[in-house]
């Protein structure tokens, strides 16, 4: 039988999109193989035509598109495209499957009143006990947000860095792994952090009591995109697979298993504690990555020098 190779983020994410893949395999007479790859290695595999479908985030999606790695999605096959929120229509070369919400996780015993704004992270009262991750997509969004709040934009990032540098001074540790942040909360070393909603739910399950606040400026959007790799033999099947990811069942799984907001409109998510709806998706902070990507090398260097370095 034919084989479709899908690069996904791995772990629970792959488990979730795999959940109903048996029916897809049966219907199309194909076996789907998942490999854990994303970012640089994902794109590398795509460029090397080793995979049929890859997952990416905004930055890599733009890079892949720019390097011509992807096939145009064919709306005739990917029929579910029409059911998506407009924000999910990344480009002709890819589509967002799901969103996540970055907000502020906090220890309700230590932080009161509950945070309401991203700027609460800057509250000197909690200096040394707040944290965020390194130079990741969400922090780039935060950086851009700060720039915008202070009169800048993607094209004028200086005010953003100035603000982030202030935050940097109040941070003892930049976390790099979710379990690490969990331990930081558990040990009381951190009382407030920029974190992902799904992870906060997970942390509660691990016995750490946390509050999650969606700042008034809006939650920062986590975006997962999917793309069909160019010049692979089973292009049509790959499109079908993308369509499968956008199907009602799959989309529900993103919510139920991963705590992500589906990209598809009009789902019935009763019983699933996930923010959903036009307004939720609409209010997500998602910057203009087309402008960001070319500047990332420079920004990264600045981040290290201005935010991380003391």
């Amino acid at each position, binding site marked *: 039988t034919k084989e479709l190779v899908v690069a996904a983020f791995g772990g*629970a994410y792959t488990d979730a999109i795999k959940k109903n893949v048996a029916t897809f395999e049966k219907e199309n007479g194909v076996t789907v193989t998942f*490999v854990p790859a994303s970012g640089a290695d994902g794109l590398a595999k795509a460029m090397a035509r080793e995979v049929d479908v890859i997952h990416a985030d905004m930055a890599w999606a733009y890079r892949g598109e720019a390097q011509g790695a992807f096939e145009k999605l064919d709306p005739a096959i990917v029929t579910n495209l029409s059911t998506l929120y407009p924000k999910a229509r990344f480009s002709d070369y890819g589509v967002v499957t799901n969103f996540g919400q970055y907000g502020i996780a906090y220890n309700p015993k230590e932080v009161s009143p509950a945070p309401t704004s991203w700027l609460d992270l800057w509250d000197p009262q909690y200096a040394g006990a707040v944290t965020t991750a390194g130079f990741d997509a969400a922090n780039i969004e935060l950086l851009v947000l700060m720039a915008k709040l202070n009169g800048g934009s993607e094209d004028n990032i200086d005010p953003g860095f100035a603000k982030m540098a202030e935050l940097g001074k109040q941070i003892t540790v930049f976390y790099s792994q979710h379990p690490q942040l969990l331990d930081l909360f558990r040990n009381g070393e951190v009382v407030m952090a920029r974190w992902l909603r799904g992870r906060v739910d997970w942390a509660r399950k691990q016995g750490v009591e946390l509050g999650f606040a969606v700042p008034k400026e809006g939650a920062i959007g986590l975006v997962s995109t999917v793309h069909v790799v160019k010049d692979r033999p089973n292009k049509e099947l790959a499109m079908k697979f993308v369509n499968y990811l956008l199907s009602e069942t799959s989309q529900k799984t993103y919510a139920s298993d991963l705590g992500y907001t589906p990209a598809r409109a009009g789902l019935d998510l009763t019983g699933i504690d996930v923010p959903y709806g036009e307004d939720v998706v609409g209010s997500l902070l998602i910057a203009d990555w087309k402008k960001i990507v070319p500047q990332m090398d420079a920004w990264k260097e600045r981040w290290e020098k201005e935010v991380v370095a003391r």
Partner: protein
Amino acid sequence: MHKTILGTTLWYLGTLAFYVFLLAPLAILVAVSFNPVAMVFPPQGFTLAWYGTILEKPDFLHAAFASTLLGVMTAVICTGFGVLAAIGLRRYDGPLKGPITSLLMAPLFIPAVIVALALFQILFMMGILNNIWTLVAAHVVVTIPYPVRNVMAQLEGFEGSLEEAALSVGATPRQALLRVTLPLLKASIIPSLIITFVLSWNNYTVSVFLASKDWVTLPLQLRAYLQYEYQPFVAAMSTMLIIASVVLLVLVDRTVGLGAMRKRG
């Protein structure tokens, strides 16, 4: 030799301290693996449930299998080549000795990810990706300094007349190597085999670019997994690995021997 009580006590304390330092993280892992709730130390209960979940993760089992196979191939080839190179370097006396030694050590000092990326691009240009052998070769390249260095070190104190004795009873240099030199180098060869195996077994940076879909290794799976989850399952799996490695090492010991012959006195 007589030993004083004080000396012996200090000796045992030293041994204890050394192993506590080395093994403390593992002890934590093993303890946590029985924790029903979360990756928290000290554990708040006892369960074996997490060991059961290992079986529910076919991806991990498959990856463990791939990693094992890859590790074995890497270990055998790398140690084999490395030992030969170390012996060759000892004998070789030409002008290239310095450069070759440096070359054999160089992979240690450049971030493997860069080499892997570059290698990936070269292989891509030559159209020979998707090949287990390129993956093995890349693993061999990044691990080869270990056997070379270890064996070279032991060779420096090697009694040359033992090899000569073999030649004098009619052994060809190859036979002398097999029957005398290699067995006597066991104290560095066996550790080299194990080290190259675990280095390959744990390698992420090379595999991430060079592993094809059929050779998704455990570190790749685990790293992806750790992005989302961190449950005692990880500890349970690590504990299983520890146990498996003990079993394996005992087997190795029984068959080829890890310990060493001691000279009298």
